[in-house]
């Protein structure tokens, strides 16, 4: 197997891309399992056969494909850029093996080197309770520290989860986000592969984070991981995901579905730091159900991609449940970050908090879409929404579409929005003090997101700062 690295060259069309020193490399592909190009019922049978799945999931996939094909693109409200995804030119399943190893030594050299360059094995040693590393369609490595597994915590890939733990998996799979929720959740339901399945038994508090890393290596590829996390009564867990892809000229699609269930009194935190290259369509559906007195917190950092559409949500199903979405979106020149949050209050005394910060640079565009729903019959519900945009250099654009339906007199809702700008004059001021243009922009951006980043786990706030610096260096060319 060749281990030569192919650095993808920058072309004028992508001059505004980040110099992703960490993520922009790829290895020559050699896949043992390849579903070919395009999407049909035969593609689904191929995936299901290779994975050796039970019939119920094969049927689930076939039905989902029909739903996907019957649903129109949501371009009546979303970006028309979606029409540029040519579904028949995408490869839906690429893998070398179905079973991840438990040891990095058994991971093929070139794949291992990929994750080493991304720092994953080192982070695992330093501060993680478990790691799953997905390369294209399947996890190549999956391991959980023995002390955590001994407490009954399950952490594995979606296929292993549905085959080995059907009694838990089946109960929740597709229940938080039904197939027909939207066109891309249907697509994921049809062709999903990889992602994590986590179950934390009642009362178990997982001290260190569990982490998954999703790596796209192949061109014209679609990655459709599916994650299901169940935190049983009174348990606590934090899950972190990181994502990268090399810079290709052609379209790459990342369309995940993430379902979270927090049972009574459970605390679940889901942290994402995505660093996509500018050819990636990143269309992800994320939702949680929070039962009585449970707390769910989404921390979502979206950097890069051509178009990201993502609105993490929490259905506040039990009394006193609490939901939170904290998001940072950075839209570089030519990129579009269409992000937001959904809070569906469905019980008394539920509270939700949304803090969204977006940064648009040059012709970058950031859109915030929020949905807060508190029906009339509920009492003592509260929502707080804060939505701040930073525009750097003329031409950047930000839109806010908050949809807040708060009915009933016993409920309170607060909404604040702000737009600030960093003008050429401000950049000149900072440069006059000796900061390069990139440093000046980084400083402004870091200042803007600082109060949010302080709430992140340390390792991730350092990583985010590094990514912002890189993005700024890239955006000044």
């Amino acid at each position: 197997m060749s281990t030569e690295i192919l650095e993808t060259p920058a072309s004028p069309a992508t001059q505004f891309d980040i110099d992703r020193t960490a993520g922009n490399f790829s290895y020559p592909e050699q896949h043992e399992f390849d579903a070919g190009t395009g999407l049909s019922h035969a593609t689904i049978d191929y995936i299901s056969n290779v994975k050796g799945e039970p019939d119920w999931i094969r049927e689930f996939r076939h039905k989902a494909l029909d739903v996907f094909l019957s649903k129109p693109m949501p371009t009546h409200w979303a970006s028309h850029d979606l029409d540029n995804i040519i579904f028949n030119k995408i490869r839906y399943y690429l893998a070398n093996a179905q079973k991840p190893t438990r040891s990095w030594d058994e991971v093929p050299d070139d794949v291992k080197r990929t994750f080493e360059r991304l720092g994953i094995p080192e982070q695992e040693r330093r501060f993680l309770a478990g790691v799953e590393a997905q390369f294209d369609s399947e996890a190549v490595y999956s391991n959980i520290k023995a002390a955590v597994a001994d407490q009954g915590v399950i952490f594995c890939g979606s296929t292993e989860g549905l085959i080995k733990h059907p009694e838990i998996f089946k109960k929740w799979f597709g229940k938080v986000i039904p197939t027909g929720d939207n066109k891309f959740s249907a697509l994921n339901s049809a062709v999903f592969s990889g992602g994590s399945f986590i179950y934390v038994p009642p009362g178990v508090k997982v001290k260190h984070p569990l982490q998954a890393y999703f790596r796209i290596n192949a061109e014209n590829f679609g990655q459709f991981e599916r994650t299901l996390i169940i935190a049983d009564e009174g348990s606590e867990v934090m899950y972190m995901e990181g994502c990268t892809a090399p810079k290709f000229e052609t379209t790459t699609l990342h369309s995940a579905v993430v379902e979270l269930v927090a049972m009574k009194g459970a605390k679940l935190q889901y942290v994402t730091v995505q660093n996509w290259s500018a050819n990636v369509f990143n269309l992800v559906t994320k939702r949680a159900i929070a039962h009585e007195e449970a707390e769910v917190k989404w921390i979502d950092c979206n950097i890069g991609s051509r178009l990201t559409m993502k609105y993490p949500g929490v259905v506040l199903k039990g009394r006193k449940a609490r939901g939170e979405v904290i998001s940072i979106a950075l839209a570089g020149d030519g990129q579009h970050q269409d992000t937001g949050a959904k809070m569906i209050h469905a019980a008394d005394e539920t509270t939700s908090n949304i803090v969204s910060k977006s940064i648009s640079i040059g012709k970058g565009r950031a859109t915030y879409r929020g949905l807060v729903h508190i029906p009339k019959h509920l009492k003592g519900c509260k929502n707080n929404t804060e939505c701040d945009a930073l525009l750097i250099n003329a031409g950047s654009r930000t839109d806010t579409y908050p949809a807040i339906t708060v009915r009933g007199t016993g409920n309170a809702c607060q909404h604040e929005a702000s737009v600030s700008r960093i003008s050429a004059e401000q950049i000149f001021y900072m440069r006059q003090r000796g900061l390069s243009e990139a440093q000046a922009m980084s400083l402004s951006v870091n200042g803007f997101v600082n109060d949010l980043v302080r709430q992140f786990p340390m390792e991730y706030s350092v990583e985010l700062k590094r990514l912002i610096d890189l993005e700024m260096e890239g955006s000044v060319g």
Partner: protein
Amino acid sequence: MSLEIKNLHARIAGNGTEILRGLTLTIEKGKVHAIMGPNGSGKSTLSKVLGGHPDYEITDGDVLLDGASILGMEPDERSRAGLFLAFQYPMEIPGVSNANFIRAALQARMPEGEELEATDYYAQLYEKMDMLEMDRKFTARSVNEGFSGGEKKRNEILQMLMLKPKYAILDETDSGLDIDALRVVSKGVNSQRGAERGFLVITHYQRLLDYIVPDEVSVLVGGRIAMSGSKALALELEAKGYDWIKEDAAEPACA
């Protein structure tokens, strides 16, 4: 050693209006050179052109910093080469604390891989703030955000004291300052006077020059230096206004 401005012609980029029209001026190290002149004569433009502001195009002439041209340098390179501009209208930088901003500016002057020592830095910062009678709360506030006019000007001088430039251009640092502030800020500037530093002080008021006594005074009219003299010239201008110079300057410049 000097900052030498030679026959500088500059116009607004894109529109072509020439604002500096053959300006020649020398700021020597160890000296304070004051510039006065009517509104709109090009004083702020001169300072921004020296700083490398992208709004302006140089069409002729040169600017030499200790003998080397700076015209090909980026604004931040000029700053690191030792040029400092105290702005007439300082910018607000939301979200960036004053202390972090100045620290980043100092860090940008350090060799790659070296980190500024935090305790030393704060000790220095507090010392300079005390000299300028600035409250400590200004370290945590965003750069200039919500500062009063006078506070902004004080903050410019604080940055100058911290960055220790070779040449400092102060654009109307006195306007907006109350009497006490004027005294304090002048004290700060005077503390930095010395053989290793040159100043260009732009002002409309001779009063400032009682505090910061200049070695030379020049008058800028219509984009070029119309007259130079000693400190006495400032007094004369205060008494007579600019009309008599404008008339002189209207004559075709002798070539």
